[in-house]
């Protein structure tokens, strides 16, 4: 079967699966939309409906105090028919978003930048997986499928991140900037991905064109595209201002992400920590948590200068664990993205235990949430304990992947050490 046919089959079956679940179980999307593991206060579809209701009646969507998402989503969704009465159009939008993301992931895999970038070529590059397989790992990832059914707006962020990465990997700088700016505008954390993606884009451009990669060239490139990036974001913010004719969205959307006023449980580590905290320490620890999350970006970008795509992947992992409002969708994106690094899988050591612990959490999380919230026979600690294990499982996978990539790098330097046991000192 040639690649196009495979792709058509894959995309067709992924879309069919999603549409089947949407139509055969009409109450399922609404049940999933209410699950704290899938929807967070800043992405929830139910809150989007609330904002949309206010927006369509010419009231500021932020007046209700429940809508904490981007104002630009509202005109998009108000074009669609009512999601309660005609859910198909909305479902189609989300299915298409997933497919566009998978398409981008295939393009990333086709460039082969995961195994051989401008400055680095892995010794295991023959162990590549076909782009169709990687896309299948994304489209049939249960976390991604569930997230698609729950319809949080983070689906669009994921698609845009994947698009931005694929554009950067192929050196299409303008579309990369636009996609990433839009993603950052929607969810804020994609800002972290800008430096590694810029490096990726620079590498792609300079290896494609016969231009000299000099410091001054790099500097011009950085300044040009950084200013373009921020200019795009400012333009989007101005557009939002024009749409709602007030700056209240800054407060309701971005400050809601930064200051963590909503302590609704989620699969992350922040909510429980901040429910237990005395108010006087809150500002300090908010700073610490953000600093911690931010700190990985420069560190990874510098250490993995030669493999910027892996930095993006690792940062997605960091976000899925340490973001203020993470959901399983972020973890799904990270795990699927990791599929592009098939060549280092043989070097990973704890895949089975880590994946098993994630599977255990997938079942025990909802069970303990049920015991806490519905049955009343458990308490918040039950659920929190499971989110800790979940975060641990993801962290182990992340750390293991970083180890594997480092080891792979090292074996390029010292081919004689291939296959030998090593010990960290």
């Amino acid at each position: 079967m040639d690649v196009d046919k495979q792709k058509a089959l894959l995309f067709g079956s992924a879309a069919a699966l999603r549409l089947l679940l949407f139509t055969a179980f009409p109450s399922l999307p609404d049940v999933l939309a209410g699950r704290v593991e899938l929807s967070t206060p800043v992405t929830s579809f139910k809150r989007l409906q609330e904002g949309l209701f206010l927006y369509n009646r010419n009231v500021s969507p932020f007046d209700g105090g429940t809508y904490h998402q981007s104002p630009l989503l509202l005109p998009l969704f108000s074009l669609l028919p009512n999601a309660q009465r005609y859910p198909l159009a909305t479902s189609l939008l989300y299915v298409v978003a997933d497919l566009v993301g998978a398409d981008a992931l295939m393009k990333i895999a086709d460039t082969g930048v995961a195994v051989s970038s401008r400055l680095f070529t892995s010794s295991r590059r023959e162990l590549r997986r076909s782009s169709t397989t990687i896309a299948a790992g994304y489209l049939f990832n249960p976390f991604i499928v569930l997230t698609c059914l729950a319809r949080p707006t983070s689906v669009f962020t994921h698609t845009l991140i994947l698009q931005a990465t694929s554009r950067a990997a192929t050196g299409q700088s303008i579309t990369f900037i636009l996609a990433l700016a839009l993603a950052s505008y929607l969810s804020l954390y994609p800002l972290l991905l800008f430096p590694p993606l810029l490096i990726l884009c620079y590498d792609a451009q300079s290896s494609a064109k016969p231009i000299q990669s000099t410091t001054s060239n790099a500097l011009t490139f950085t300044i040009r595209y950084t200013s373009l990036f921020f200019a795009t974001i400012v333009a989007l913010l101005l557009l939002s201002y024009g749409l709602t004719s007030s700056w209240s969205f800054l407060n309701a959307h971005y400050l809601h992400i930064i200051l963590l006023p909503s302590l609704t449980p989620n699969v992350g580590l922040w909510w429980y920590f901040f429910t237990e905290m005395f108010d006087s320490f809150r500002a300090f620890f908010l700073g610490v948590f953000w600093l911690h999350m931010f700190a990985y970006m420069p560190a990874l970008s510098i250490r993995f200068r030669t493999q910027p795509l892996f930095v993006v992947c690792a940062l997605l992992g960091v976000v899925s664990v340490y973001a203020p409002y993470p959901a399983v969708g972020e973890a799904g994106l990270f795990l699927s993205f990791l599929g592009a690094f098939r060549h280092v899988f043989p070097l990973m050591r704890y895949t089975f235990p880590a994946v098993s612990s994630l599977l255990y959490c997938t079942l025990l999380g909802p069970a303990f949430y049920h015991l806490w919230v519905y049955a009343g026979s458990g308490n918040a600690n039950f659920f929190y304990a499971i989110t800790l294990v979940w975060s641990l499982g993801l962290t182990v996978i992340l750390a293991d992947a970083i180890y594997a990539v480092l080891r792979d790098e090292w074996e390029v330097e010292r081919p004689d050490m291939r296959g030998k046991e090593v010990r960290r000192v």
Partner: protein
Amino acid sequence: MFLLRELLAEIRIATAILGLRHDPRLLKLPPYLSALCILVGTVWLLLLPLNEYSRQTYVSENALLPGQVHTYFGGSEHNIFRAYRHEVHALEHKSAEERTEKFVELLKDCGLKVGRQKYEYSSAGNTVSGENVYAVLQGPRADATEAIVLIGAWRNMDNVINYSGVALVLTLARYFKRWSLWSKDIIFLLPFDSASGSQAWVDAYHDAHDPLHVQPLSIKSGALQGAIAVDYPAGPWGHRFEKLHIVYDGVNGQLPNLDLFNTAVNIASGQMGIGTTLQRMWHHSDSYRDRLMTMLRGMLSQGLGHVSGPHSAFIPYHVDAITVQTVGDGWHDEMSLGRTVESLCRSLNNLLEHLHQSFFFYLLMQANRFVSIGTYLPSAMIIAANFTITSIVLWVQSGRPAAPSKVASTSNSEKEKAKEPDLTIVKEGRNVALVPAAAFEVIERHLFLPVGFIATVHFLGLLPLYVFNTAPQATLKASFTIFTILTLVLPHAFSQALARIPPQPPTPQQITLIQSFSLLLLGLFLSALATLNFSLSLMIGLLSTPFSFVRPSKSPILVGLMNLLLAAMAPPVVMGGIAWWFGKDVGELLAQASFGWHVWGMWTQVVIWLVWWPAWVTASVVAIGALY
């Protein structure tokens, strides 16, 4: 000198352990380890009834003060009770409509606000409909934020008319109305029947009903704090009983707070001198055997997850509830029962907050002995762990190249080992070990077929779930028979398909991976289930134990034996066997399960068809696959 020797010995041990880590013998261990897990889990369960492992019950919640109040139900109330009993008896042959009218009238006469509610459920082609009557007594000291429910169902779980129970609730309604001490509202509920009436009522009370089938409630009170159902099916001339049977199981194995049960036992035996019993153990001699029997009956009822009385429907809504049932011939009369219920209501009336102090997860083995979750949970978890252990081992095995020689396992002395050419030096800290290089080799695992197969089998489980929950009762038995045959044939069909359809027949590695994933999922589901419904998890775990031990084999005799054993353990066969053992018709049982699914929200079926059945199919495919 001594220290040095010590150090050397330590190094030697550590090296030995390190060498052992890659010893092929280590991979032979897990079947024994799995068997040990199952053994420990079972023995653990059998130890629970002993004095050393179970505990005396106690009331944790201070506010309950069981039996500390004087009860005044007596004297002339007895005459009123007898009058009501005759009124109720006279309704026996009246139509449902007339009966409801009469109840409304009687409750109105007590000076209470009365509401009524019609409902109609359909499942397995049958329709159940009825009308509930209820009345709200507004507590003189209450602000309508909390309420207690007193239930007298017209028919009890055995479908016998509950004359005296209903009469007692009516008498108590009249009697309670006179008291000024109620600090919670009291709701008197007369459901049409035990299995569905109170379910319809409590669903509507929490606005969780389906408006197409169940009417909403016209009057409501505050949050429900507790519910007590009275089951006293004595006719118009009364019947003196011996003991009170306290029923406490809820839907899906959820239990009420242990404090409520303890309060009931405490009041009945301490204050009133009435013996109590549980789980239909009419004669309990406090021996090990009786305790174990009580515990196992409790687990069976919890595991099946069905409704055991009109109280069961309340428990999923986090309303602690019990049914008090009279049993035997003795000398306790209706007034003692009335005073017990009065005292229970007074205790609940004292509550300052929702019952939360005591245990929600427990196994009772006598009215005053229990084990809590910390003590019993390990048994189910250990049994679930055996699947995970086997699955991890199979995963490791699947990554090993097919064993080329037996040299490594037979050569024991270190000298011989050193001569082997393919050895690697392993250093860990200051320890050095020599191990065969093959131990480090990990071969490529082909995951697509195993994952696809597991997903398909689990997806197929939806079919019986759908069919048995929607088919009409008349066809249930036939479809069950057909399904049993299909189930037994399915592994052979799968093996044929696996051997013929893909580009090449599955490799031994893929078969190992199929089993590994199936057992991983089974372990996963069972340990998650153990936190929700311990007994069901334990039962399915025990019934699935052979799945850990089946291995592909080329010997037709061994395969035949495994196949036979597995066929005997097939979920439909086991279900048919259980139905036969209890002398029940399978079709009727399935109809009841379907009723439970639609009305009570019971999900035992989900566990059977989506957890147990796929695991069985996979194990059978693994066992017979090599023959095709």
